[in-house]
């Protein structure tokens, strides 16, 4: 009945004496695309592991409604399985062989890898591998997609292509998405809500909403402005003074 799929309440988490997350509150509704951004080591993966239930928080509570699928930072494909076998992991218990084949065919078509069904991951480029990961996570029933820096191992141009690919896939197969990334641009192009984590112990200070149709152009003023604001809130000294004033002048 609830449209709140994920509810994180007063969550803190420590490894030994190191407090990684402090008093994090977060509610995510069905259909939202959330991006969690922050510098390396600030606790993004930890937060995702807590949300997925892989780890239990030191204090606070987390509730989740619906089935989760995880897309990993790198090389989450099983290298001894072909593309089609990897994609089919989530529906391997399906009895109806015809239905299963139809779903697999759809998934391969969706990511445009027709002809690569029998290839192994090591025979694919990084971008193709990540598309297979997405197809695997989107095949079969699921509600929530958790993605841990899914494109961070790719080169810049491939990364931009994959963002558009993800938008297209989600139009076909709507999911609630939590994307963890250190790439602010990626967050601004993809997310409805961006949550910046501060450095350790990480907590949520502000959040930024972006109401703009997707796919979004990387150079859309709303996107570039969001990048600018996020840079300032995450790392105040990171922009040269001239650029700050330059943008301010434009805005006026």
């Amino acid at each position, binding site marked *: 009945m609830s449209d709140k799929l994920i509810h994180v309440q007063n969550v803190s988490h420590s490894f030994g004496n190191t407090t990684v997350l402090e008093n994090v509150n977060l509610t995510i509704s069905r259909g939202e695309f959330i991006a969690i951004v922050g510098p390396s080591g600030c606790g993004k993966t930890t937060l995702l592991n807590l949300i997925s239930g892989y780890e239990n928080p030191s204090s606070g509570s987390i509730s989740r409604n619906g089935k989760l699928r995880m897309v*990993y930072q790198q090389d989450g494909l099983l290298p001894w399985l072909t593309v089609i076998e990897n994609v089919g992991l989530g529906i391997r218990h399906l009895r109806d062989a015809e239905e299963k084949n139809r779903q697999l065919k759809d998934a391969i078509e969706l990511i445009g890898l027709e002809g690569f069904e029998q290839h192994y991951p090591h025979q694919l480029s990084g971008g193709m591998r990540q598309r297979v990961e997405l197809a695997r996570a989107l095949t079969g029933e699921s509600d929530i997609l958790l993605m841990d820096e899914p494109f961070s191992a790719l080169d810049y141009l491939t990364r931009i292509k994959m963002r558009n690919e993800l938008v297209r896939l989600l139009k076909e197969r709507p999911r609630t998405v939590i994307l963890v990334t250190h790439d602010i641009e990626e967050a601004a192009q993809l997310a409805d809500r961006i949550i910046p984590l501060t450095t350790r112990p990480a907590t949520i200070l502000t959040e930024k909403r972006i109401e703009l149709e997707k796919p979004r152009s990387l150079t859309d003023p709303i996107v570039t402005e969001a990048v600018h604001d996020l840079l300032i809130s995450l790392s105040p000294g990171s922009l040269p003074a001239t650029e700050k004033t330059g943008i301010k002048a434009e805005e006026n």
Partner: protein
Amino acid sequence: MHQTGINRFQRRVLPLAVLLFVIISWYIISLFVPSNSVFPSPVDVFFGFLEEAGSGRLANDLIASLFRVTAGFFLAVFLGIPLGLWMGVQPFARAALLPTINFFRNLSPLAWIPFAILWFGIGDAPAVFLIFMAAFFPIVLATIAAVGNIPAVYFRVGSDYGMNRWEILKNITFPAIAPQVITSLRVTAGLSWLVVVAAEMIAGNDGLGFAIWDARNGLRMDLLVSGMIVIGLIGVILDRVLVQLTEIPSIRWGYER
């Protein structure tokens, strides 16, 4: 993997040229050493080989040696891999057993020859025992290491997609360790082939190792050399056969990075 600067033709011809050079040099040297009971010529060896092959002794010895290697090696594989798996996943078992396994791994299997004869007499059994002692410990250690090298993300993917413990063992652990374990099987199969020759020289009444020892006792150096050549060639063929395992598509990935 890829040799550069050498074309296919050269890759075929260069080894043959070296082989030809070795045989010709061997022949020339044998002309200057008159006694062929000390230094047989390639021609002597060739006729010796025909004699052994014709009498059926060569086939007998070959089968005896291959049987012993197969028996000892497979025994080591079927006991060593499960033990390695168990030690790989159970820190308790690893802590308890690793020092002992390491000790035996570093003890030459040939040191067991006296006991092999004392306990098992002469024939198949002592050779199988020695081969087992040579192959078992390295296989256990390689399997433990392979289990330790499995990236954690594979297990997470397994449980994300609802695999139970048995499915994870069958669908994640086994395929993940296969490339590394196969590499160790190639090494230990080669080791087994070395050991069977030594075992038969001392504790055999047939087999290729016995054949060359017997040839030496009969001062038939031509037969000795022909036996040596057969032993070397079979060793190469065994390795070529095991290399085929690394070409299996679902295993190939392990050698591509």
